[in-house]
């Protein structure tokens, strides 16, 4: 932990410890990529093993999926603006866009939970078939990440309100931004390889 500050860099990169934390988080995202790649692999193996239960075409609702996608992709955009405002040292703007991000993320989560409940209601539960097991666990893992992200960002907002923009809070916000964009990328893969592919199978 070096206290040396290099003021020429953006706030979140100014201390050595911050630079290490950001690199460490990138390495963590590498591990997350392996984690999701494994779940996608499992889904790819099991996605036609219906065991007499419903298929993708029977349960997917295109409109709802499009709304979820729209909400999450937009939230990634607002997250980007939030970090942009942070770089401009505009704390108010930063927090405003961060709150937008969370609202959009919350909306996504609401839609996803509703979707899951709808499926279970239709008789398509996690225990029904291998396809549905892998579907629920893949999407559930993503949804859990979004949930944790929302809780994390709320703690972050409190800290920024308490302390203002310091190298530490800026680094935390930046790392949260990386995490949030990553979830968006994962969703693009889910949208493509689960929903779109499922509809043409």
């Amino acid at each position, binding site marked *: 932990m070096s206290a040396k500050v290099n003021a020429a860099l953006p706030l979140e990169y100014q201390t050595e410890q911050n630079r*290490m934390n950001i690199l460490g988080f990138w390495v963590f995202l590498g591990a*997350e990529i392996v984690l999701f790649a494994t779940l996608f692999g499992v889904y790819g193996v099991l996605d036609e093993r219906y065991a007499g239960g419903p298929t993708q075409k029977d349960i997917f609702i295109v409109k709802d999926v499009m709304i979820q996608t729209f909400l999450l992709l937009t939230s990634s955009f607002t997250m980007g603006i939030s970090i942009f405002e942070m770089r401009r040292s505009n704390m108010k703007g930063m927090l405003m866009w961060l709150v937008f991000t969370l609202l959009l993320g919350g909306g996504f989560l609401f839609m996803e939970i509703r979707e899951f409940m709808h499926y279970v209601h239709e008789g398509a539960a996690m225990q029904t078939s291998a396809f549905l097991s892998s579907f629920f666990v893949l999407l559930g893992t993503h949804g859990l990440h979004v949930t944790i992200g929302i809780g994390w960002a709320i703690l972050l907002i409190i800290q920024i309100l308490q302390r203002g923009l310091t190298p530490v809070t800026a680094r935390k916000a930046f790392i949260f931004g990386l995490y949030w964009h990553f979830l968006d990328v994962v969703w693009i893969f889910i949208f493509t390889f689960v929903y779109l592919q499922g509809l043409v199978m």
Partner: protein
Amino acid sequence: MGIKWDEFFVTGDPLIFASQIGIALTLVGALAGITYFKKWNYLWSEWFTTVDHKKIGIMYILLGVVMFLRGGIDGLMMKGQTAVPENDFLNAQHYNEVFTTHGVIMILFVAMPLLIGLMNFVIPLQIGARDVAFPQLNALSFWLTVSGAALFNISFIIGGSPDAGWTSYFPLAGKEFSPGIGNNFYAVALQIAGAGTLMTGINFVVTVLKMRTKGMTLMKMPMFTWTSFITSIIIVASFPIFTVALALMTFDRTFGTHFFTISGGGMDMLWANLFWLWGHPEVYIVVLPAFGMLSDIISTFARKTLYGYKSMVISIVMISVLSMLVWVHHFFTMGNSAGVNSFFSITTMAIAIPTGVKVFNWLFTMRKGRIKFTTAMFWALAFVPNFVIGGVTGVMLAMAAADYQYHNTLFLVAHFHYVLIPGVVFPIFAGLYFWWPKMFGYMLNEKIGKWHFWLFVVGFNVTFMPMFFLGLDGAVRRAYTYSAETGFGPLMMISAVGSVILAAGFAALVYNIYWSARNADRNIGNDPWDARTLEWATATPVQHYNFASLPEVTKLDAFWHMKKNDQLQPLTEDEIEEIHLPSNTWIPIYMGVVFGISGFLLVFEWTIAAGIAALGILAGLAFRSFDYDEGFHVHKDEIFETESNWRKGANKGVKNHVS
């Protein structure tokens, strides 16, 4: 769902009943002892809450040694059972449990903690740093490992041990064929420990990339640092696969999903693939740091720079890439096409190439060296021929067609013990003898060390060499007994006798630690081996801030060149600056406890209670998020005093320990 209370404690077996009483008495005794000697405060503030990489390393090593005892007793029990035909010392179920826990414990709670412990202690010192990149995370890694180990170990007195082999293949490990909760212990305990290991991997990747001292380019790093770095990358690339596999196992067993089941469209081979996609790289995770330690030890005691440094680095990178491409060789016989088997046969044999390069590099390092026959060097010397036996039999097993003969026999068991014991355990012993003075300020006794060495190496060979022949004669692994007509009896008996010699060797190590702690010379200087790397440039035992001023490096074997070229400058008072260090924290040990409680409840499938306990985990994360502790500064006067003390005393009246 849920487990009945009358199944809570394992009952009915006198051996287990005796251990339950033994464990209860030991626990009560330990707690009473600590209270009586008023050591709680010391333990809490010096060890339980520490973030110092050196202390965390030592705690990892302690965990590894204790688990070695447990795993070793499992091994002895198996050898006792199979020593004579039709033995009834253990019944089939008990034997299943014993070989399962033996495998899991030896790999995940012995090899890993011992290696990660040595990495923790040595790597920051070797790269001239004051700690790892994320000291609190490091403590969290350790306490999660402890939590997982504790959870796994209580399984044999509470609830029942896992019994489906350390590989836990489905469908055997599923609810249908293993209805008890033993395999839940496997899934949950390894999940917790695995999370800790993943964090260690991330921590060391960043530490090595970002915290090397001035002048230490990647190609000037000591070999142990190199191998630990590559190992950390493999950890990051492979442990998430295990995380997923174990999570899916938990889902199948506890929540009724169909990933690996036979009904519902599940696919049991999916487990085998996921398990070995992690499991094979895991072998290299344990063997690579061991190779690195050997490289440093051999070059120290051959008193030469490592031969072929660059080819060594290229080899470990190649091994790490190949490690991800060979997993199917663990199930050649399980219905793959000939094309698939051929591909994995070839990748497997290809691993022999970089490994062979390394073996020759070690031999050429020793060639024309003035070898000092210390105990550490003994282990390194014994490693080469023994490991080559493991390697050559590995190439035999790599031939898919021939593997149909060897598969699932004791030949395979002998092979991987010849890889893992000379390839991991010998180097760990070498590393312990080598770095022990750095850790504790005294050396392990060389004479008892030689006893340890000879008993262990002879015992090892007597135990496992007969198993090659038993395997070729058709003795299958994991069979709890055999009939006299098979003719396995005599070799099995020899093997059992060997295991007792092996155990005596381990006992000699324990006695050596005890004897040396009491009697060994404390006046050994900071560099008792006349060594080559930076960890020997600072005090022994190492002061908590590691280096008063960070060393500057111009060459490989930096410390050696400093000594030869008289570049070791005395430290002057005006060079000393305040040193910033992180504060202790209670959060990691708290996280270990809540993970343990939550995991325990999940094992018993009390999911609601487990969920409530998991709120404690979230609370811990929140505490950490709001923790803005800035650490503290070590004052100049304190540094000056510490430094002058050890530098003044250094080398005064110190015997040369290696001549």
